[in-house]
């Protein structure tokens, strides 16, 4: 197998979205969304407020179903399985697909307890295993050195940026394949933002990452693929370099050059 072929295999689609539609009551929030999300790459989703990007990322792990009164049509396949298949347990999907939210939302527990929350609900009880998971997850999230001496202190004592990295570590603890990030840096200062961006770069070795962002520079800096959403439609989806340097749609160009949004 040549190097090129290996890369091609590695970047197979992990998600395949096909004609996906979603309504909040009468409001048609996502319209015929169709594209593939590659494995072990960072896929950014950009677009102005209210364009459906958060709704879309929350559809990928079915968190969107927490909103009452939604309707959906079309399909989202994760590893060739339709995630809306009644036989596919939503808990199973979410064990494979972790999520990090806009606002850091640690539990009001110790740092240690935050990390082991996921493993514990999936039935891991062995102390040694849990200790290892805590160390590994915090190291992956570049937080270990900062908190290793106070693992049993309350997570609320951490700064906002540390809390967000803790949330990333917490989602890594159950060893997912995909990490969904819904504007993970919008509540953070520039330095914390930079740390998270570096983290995203290092995580794509082992994980497929989908990141929603308001910040076009961020998308350009950290992503491999970018999808531009507008009014619930995917206007353009391409390699990030291509989309930002030579967009094929006028609306994409208008957005990335700051003419609206």
């Amino acid at each position, binding site marked *: 197998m040549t190097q090129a072929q290996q890369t091609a295999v590695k970047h197979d689609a992990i998600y395949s979205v096909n004609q996906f539609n979603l309504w909040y009551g009468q409001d048609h929030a996502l319209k015929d969304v169709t594209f593939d999300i590659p494995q072990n790459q960072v896929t950014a989703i950009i677009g102005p407020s209210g364009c459906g990007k958060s709704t879309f990322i929350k559809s990928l792990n079915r968190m969107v179903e927490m909103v009452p009164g939604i309707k959906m049509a079309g399909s989202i396949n994760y590893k060739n399985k339709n995630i809306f298949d009644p036989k596919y347990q939503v808990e199973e999907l*979410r064990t494979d697909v972790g999520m990090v939210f806009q606002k850091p*939302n640690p539990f009001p527990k110790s740092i240690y307890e935050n990390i082991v929350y996921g493993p514990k609900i999936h039935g891991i009880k062995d102390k040694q295993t849990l200790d290892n998971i805590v160390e590994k997850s915090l190291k992956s999230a570049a937080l270990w050195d900062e908190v290793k001496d106070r693992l049993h202190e309350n997570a609320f004592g951490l700064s906002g940026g540390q809390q967000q990295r803790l949330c990333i570590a917490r989602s890594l603890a159950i060893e997912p394949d995909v990490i969904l990030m819904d504007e993970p840096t919008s509540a953070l200062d520039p330095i914390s933002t930079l740390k998270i961006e570096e983290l995203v770069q290092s995580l794509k070795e082992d994980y497929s990452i989908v990141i929603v962002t308001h910040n076009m520079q961020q998308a350009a800096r950290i992503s491999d693929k970018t999808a531009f959403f507008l009014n619930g439609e995917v206007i353009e989806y391409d390699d990030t370099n291509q989309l930002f340097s030579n967009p094929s749609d006028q609306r994409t160009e208008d957005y990335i050059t700051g003419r609206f949004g």
Partner: protein
Amino acid sequence: MSSIDKQLIQRKMGKRTFQNKLLKAIFFMCIIFSILVLGALIIRVVSQGITHLDWNFLTSFASRFPEEAGFKAAVVGSLWLMVIVAPVSVFLGVGTAIYLEEYAKDNRFTRFIQMNISNLAGVPSVVFGLLGLTFFVRLMEMGRSIMAGGLTLSLLILPIIVVAAQEAIRSVPNDQYEASFAMGASKWQTIRRIVLPSAIPGILTGSILALSRAIGETAPLLMIGALTFIAYLPENVWDGFTVMPIQIFNWTGRPQEEFHFVAASGIMILLFLLIIMNSVAIYIRNKFSKRY
């Protein structure tokens, strides 16, 4: 020209500040009134009751002679009652609240139940007594037992516990649910590990306050026929019983004045117990309340 007339503002300034002071004084009187009444009550009860309050009062049974009359059966009866009321009402109340807040779909039936729980909290306690008499005492043939009394009081305070537990559960922020669900936790795991730990202070506070209401309740127990004069201690939940407020009620109804002093001693014990329970509730609320 300016649309704000500075002179007009000056002229009205005096009236505005006076108005503010006057209302402040009125509101102050409101609180003083209730404090004075409470103070008067406590002074009267203590001055009458202190003479009779000693160890014998707690360890003797009721008697025809005021100097020998004691509160033992009533105190023990109240405690027995709590053995039934506390687990039954808290389990049913918290279970109902969890179902309504977490599992129930928002439909007409749920809203109907919700409305009726709020209404139940306003039903006079004597009506609950009637329910207890018909259902527990007669229909289920429990007799005038601690079990019948305890179940009746449980129903009485159930709505208070349900509403308090619902409030506590609702105060858990949505992002905590999201964090838990996003890691593949089931609904019950989320309730058990995230929601309940956060809601427990609120649930406990509400439950203790509801229980202290149950301890002071007389009417429903009179309806189901709790005895007023017993010279033995109940041995199990099927025995007859009396409770503190009923014993007090009985003493105050006697013609001899000495019995009124005995009643005052009983009231002191009851008040003391209620203050303790409420203090525990406040302590729990302050100590364990989670801030997000």
